[in-house]
């Protein structure tokens, strides 16, 4: 065991080590349990560790391995974003509203990964109800970026990104409604994939904006994400929006070279909002893809600047409807000594939700009200169609679109100079894919002043295979994904 660097191993290498009995799942799990105990007090990336459950599952995995079971993720530890319901374990969505909620069932993502043999290490911190781009809206406190503890990890899947980047787990789950996998993956220097809308079941994933929410993998490489997606993807009768489509063999697909692929580069992704240093890093990464035989094609997505406003009409509208269920009656927080039913509703919601969640509920309630429905909500749905059409037209002529994942590297925590709408602009390059339902991935593609830069790869609907393929081939030729934060270097 001593000669394996467990922090650096790919999922495939970990599986081989387990298979060859170089290490047991109990030892592997204990390694990451110890790292969480040792290092997470600095990061705050885990809300609920599930050490006892993990070691129990690891023992069972070792027995299965001994009996010749070769399930793809058997014995490999994973962290789940605390938005996924986990039976018998607290599922808080990083909100006071659900601080004591214990789910009576598993989300399909959780049960699918468990079926593949993954070990649940715990539940990761996040922006409250997945609303945020800095992981500062969590009821359980902000998460720190392992590359620089004074900076944000991005959000909303900031806990998952920070934990993987710090080597507290080999991989994690995340969700992405407007960039919540890709932006934190970029800011923490890991790989994160948002699959096509409908590729992965949303059953048991606490709803934010139901027409855009999608679960996906976060890990050290595209190859690891491919392995995780294989376990997560597929039709689920419990989610009527999950697609009845066959899941490709991603492990095989990603081995095909990129030579001959056409990669669209939208000029709108390189406008004045993009930091010049990030732009340089992305251009260098694009030249690398070109050197590998791909053809770069200038493309236009003219409605890109409208993406943020369109998203921030639609997402809060859907959130205001979804979050109406938190009324203090059936589950979740209830205020002390309510005077009457109205008082119970109002005080439970006012005391149970944080400021950003309430802000979005107010905006969503307003845009759905009769007087402003056509002006804002219908209008946004029409612009959404325009944006989706533009992506479809471009992707009819190129295999993937490439550009930055986020306009900047990780920004400082508690940045008072950033207004609410400045924060929303963090999502300018990511929201388009959610509005259009397309798959997109962020991969490490450079380092600027000690902080990682993420390149975004966007694919055709349900063509995660090509996105993963381009990412994997890029990672075979570069080592940005092998660069680790100072905390990850810390040996246990």
């Amino acid at each position: 065991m001593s000669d394996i660097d467990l922090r650096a191993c790919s999922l495939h290498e970990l599986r081989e080590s387990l298979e060859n009995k170089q290490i047991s799942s109990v030892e592997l799990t204990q390694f990451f349990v110890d790292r969480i105990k040792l290092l997470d007090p600095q990061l705050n990336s885990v809300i609920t560790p599930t050490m006892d459950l993990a070691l129990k599952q690891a023992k069972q995995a070792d027995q299965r391995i001994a009996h010749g079971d070769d399930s793809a993720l058997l014995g490999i530890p994973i962290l789940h974003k605390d938005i996924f319901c986990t039976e018998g374990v607290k599922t808080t969505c990083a909100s006071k509203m659900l601080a004591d909620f214990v789910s009576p069932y598993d989300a399909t993502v959780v049960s699918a990964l468990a079926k593949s043999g993954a070990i649940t290490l715990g539940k990761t911190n996040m922006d409250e109800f997945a609303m945020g781009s800095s992981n500062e809206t969590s009821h359980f406190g902000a998460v720190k970026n392992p590359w620089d503890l004074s900076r944000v990890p991005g959000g909303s899947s900031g806990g998952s990104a920070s934990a993987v980047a710090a080597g507290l787990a080999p991989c994690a789950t995340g969700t992405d409604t407007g960039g919540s996998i890709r932006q934190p993956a970029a800011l923490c220097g890991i790989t994160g994939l948002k699959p096509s809308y409908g590729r992965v079941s949303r059953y048991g994933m606490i709803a934010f904006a139901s027409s855009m929410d999608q679960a996906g993998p976060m890990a050290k490489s595209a190859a690891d994400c491919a392995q995780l997606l294989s376990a997560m993807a597929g039709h689920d009768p419990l989610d009527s929006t999950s697609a009845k489509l066959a899941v490709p063999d991603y492990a095989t697909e990603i081995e095909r070279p990129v030579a001959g692929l056409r990669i669209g580069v939208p000029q709108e992704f390189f406008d004045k909002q993009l930091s010049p240093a990030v732009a340089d890093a992305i251009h260098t990464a694009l030249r690398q893809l070109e050197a590998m035989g791909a053809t770069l094609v200038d493309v236009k997505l003219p409605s890109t600047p409208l993406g943020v406003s369109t998203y921030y009409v639609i997402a809060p509208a859907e959130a205001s409807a979804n979050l109406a269920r938190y009324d203090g009656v059936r589950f979740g927080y209830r205020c002390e000594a309510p005077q009457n039913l109205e008082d119970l509703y109002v005080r439970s919601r006012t005391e149970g939700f944080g400021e950003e969640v309430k802000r979005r509920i107010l905006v969503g309630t307003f845009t759905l009200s009769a007087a402003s429905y056509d002006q804002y909500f219908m209008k946004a749905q029409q612009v959404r169609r325009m944006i989706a059409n533009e992506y479809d037209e471009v992707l009819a002529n190129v295999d993937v679109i490439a550009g930055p994942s986020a306009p900047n590297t990780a920004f400082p925590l508690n940045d008072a100079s950033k207004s609410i709408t400045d924060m929303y602009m963090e999502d300018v390059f990511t929201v388009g894919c959610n509005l259009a339902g397309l798959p997109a991935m962020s991969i490490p593609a450079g380092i600027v002043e000690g902080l990682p830069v993420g390149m975004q790869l966007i694919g055709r609907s349900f063509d995660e295979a090509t996105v993963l393929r381009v990412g994997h081939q890029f990672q075979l030729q570069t080592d940005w994904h092998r660069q680790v934060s100072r905390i990850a270097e810390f040996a246990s």
Partner: protein
Amino acid sequence: MAASTDVTPIAALAKLAISDQSFSQVKENFESTLKLFEELTRVDTNGIEPLVSPGDRHQVLRVDTDETLVERAELMQNAPAQEENYFTVPRVID
């Protein structure tokens, strides 16, 4: 002051209370977000069908069968207040 703005009736619809101390900040944030949306009103969307969901390509139907995914007793474990397996709330009829 509170009665003269749009935020108060919206908050009432959303079953949220805005304290006097936070009112001006909430109003300012609300208005700055609406300002962000102004650019949408200038877009010519004549004849464009709204896109409600990327998954709206087909309707999914299934046989209407009765099944129990989670037992009632398990669901009730998260109830903030209950009596004889029913949720309880303050009296609504005098």
